[in-house]
């Protein structure tokens, strides 16, 4: 007969995530009494200090919110402004912004799979330790990350905090001789990305099915990245401008990041939510790889997030090849678009989930109010729900070390970017 015990665990710094956070867990009489994902990184107040700047300045400013997903911030912002100003992207522009976005998915997913998440599944405490036994896997991750960064820089001038995106287009269109070598490297990477899907699917996953709501962008013509309506696995479909009517953010006393709910419930955004809702729109060759990997989607095992991420990485390379094969230098890389007054809404799929922006813009195109909802704050409630479920499934009589490791692994499944939401997990477990 097992004996219940009271537990207090504090993970004071969560490693291998972006930003600073902690987990506090109290177990009393064998039940979880308190479980708080505590984000204590100070709020950065970006929304306030972009007030008073004009749209193109804001596109470059919001890129500074995140060193991992600056393209997402730029794309949500430029989409918002262009929707408000009545500008519809010409085909060339839409295709090349999507190609640039593929670069961000590629670098971010490659980093997370190989350096952050895989060590959990293979029993290492870091990618450095993992590199001793799996040097080729780690090299693959670094090479794919570099390729993604170079694809971003092709359009953005540099990979971290790129500067290429503007209202009406790009500041500069790359020359064909700049595109050709990247295109060839992307073609050469396809076999490795296909093999990556099978590699991740072959990892040892805990059996951990659970109910959750998936939310993602969806577009009738494509696997949604940079446009679409918001849909949920429970039947919601809405234009992004109605986000505030369905989704609600609230403050928790222990966190500087807001929690978000849909109909009062936590929800999931990110690769697994996107694959669950939109896998039928993946290009057939990518879907074929997905369907033969041995993991079936839709999946409600959050540990399958790493496989979903690998499928999206393969997709990003496949899609970027298809887009860049049609590359032609345009007559002009942008069209001047006069500003208009009104409320601007933008929403695109950042690597770790959808990123929603609202800007109130005056007649001169100056920002008077901004609201930015990043994916990690949206996932916060879902992460807490998942950690609770997963630890109860693991068994609360497990050792403190086993509980801490499982909690960290669960949290890393979400690839949280705590800096965006407002770094690492500290875990406090109290057993009383």
């Amino acid at each position, binding site marked *: 007969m097992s004996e219940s015990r009271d537990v207090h665990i504090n993970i004071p710094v969560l*490693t291998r995530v*972006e930003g600073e956070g902690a987990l506090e867990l109290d177990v009393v009489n064998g039940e979880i009494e308190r479980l708080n994902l505590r984000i204590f990184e100070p709020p950065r107040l970006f929304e306030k200090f972009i007030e008073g700047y004009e749209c193109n300045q804001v596109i470059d400013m919001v890129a500074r919110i995140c*060193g991992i997903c600056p393209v997402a911030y730029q794309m949500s912002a430029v989409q918002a402004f262009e929707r408000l100003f009545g500008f519809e992207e010409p085909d060339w522009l839409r295709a090349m912004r999507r190609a640039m976005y593929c670069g961000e998915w590629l670098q971010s997913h490659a*980093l997370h799979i190989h350096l952050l998440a895989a060590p959990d599944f293979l029993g290492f405490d*870091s990618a450095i330790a993992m590199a001793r036994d799996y040097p080729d896997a*780690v090299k693959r991750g670094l090479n794919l990350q570099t390729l993604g960064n170079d694809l971003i820089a092709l359009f953005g001038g540099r990979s*971290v*905090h790129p500067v290429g995106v503007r209202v009406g287009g790009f500041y500069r269109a790359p020359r064909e001789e700049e595109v050709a070598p990247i295109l060839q490297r992307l073609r050469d990477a396809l076999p490795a990305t296909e093999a990556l899907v099978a590699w991740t699917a072959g990892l040892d996953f805990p059996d951990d099915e659970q109910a959750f709501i998936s939310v993602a962008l969806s577009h009738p013509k494509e696997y949604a990245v940079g446009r679409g309506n918001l849909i949920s696995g429970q039947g919601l479909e809405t234009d992004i401008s109605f986000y505030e009517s369905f989704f609600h953010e609230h403050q928790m006393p222990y966190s500087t990041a807001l929690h978000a709910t849909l109909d009062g419930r936590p929800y999931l955004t990110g690769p697994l939510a996107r694959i669950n809702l939109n896998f039928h729109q993946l290009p057939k060759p990518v879907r074929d790889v997905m369907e033969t990997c041995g993991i079936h989607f839709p999946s409600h095992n959050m540990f399958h997030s790493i496989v979903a991420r690998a499928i999206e990485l393969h997709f990003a390379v496949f899609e970027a090849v298809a887009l860049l094969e049609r590359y032609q230098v345009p007559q002009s890389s942008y069209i001047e678009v006069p500003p208009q007054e009104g409320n601007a809404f933008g929403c695109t799929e950042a690597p770790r989930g959808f990123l929603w922006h609202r800007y109130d813009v005056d007649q001169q195109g100056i920002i008077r109010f901004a609201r930015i909802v990043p994916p990690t704050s949206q996932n916060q409630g879902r992460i807490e729900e998942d950690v609770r479920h997963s630890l109860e499934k693991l068994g609360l009589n497990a050792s403190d070390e086993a509980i801490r490791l499982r909690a960290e692994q669960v949290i890393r499944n979400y690839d949280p970017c705590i800096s965006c939401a407002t770094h690492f997990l500290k875990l406090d477990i109290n057993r009383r």
Partner: protein
Amino acid sequence: MIRVIGVGSPFGADQLGWMAIDHLATLGLVECELLKLDRPGSRLLDHFRDVSSVVVIDAVAVNDRPGGVSALSLSDLQQIQCTPSSHGFGLAETLALGGQLGKLPTDFHLIGIHTGETLSAVPILDLASLEALVLPLI
């Protein structure tokens, strides 16, 4: 050809690596490529390609002699806090990973500039010490 890389950011003492590169750029060095990188994380390894000699300069949290310059070994790095990092993957982790994967240049040198007690203040960089340590490597 040798590549000298300053790692840092625009903030406080973290910019000391960049300041070192700015100074070296005034010396008219030949056969020497100077680079300033903003918190590169694991991307630092990309900059070791196509070159056999590399010097990396970064701010290190050492209280002794603020602005002072020291040659460091990789094992020294495990004891010292370096540039703030992305995903907890800073200079020490990146160089450890590079070493594990055989991605470090054959001729590799690491120079640390002491921040002093606080990272928010920028100490006066000891240029004479910087030159004395870096120029013989070039």
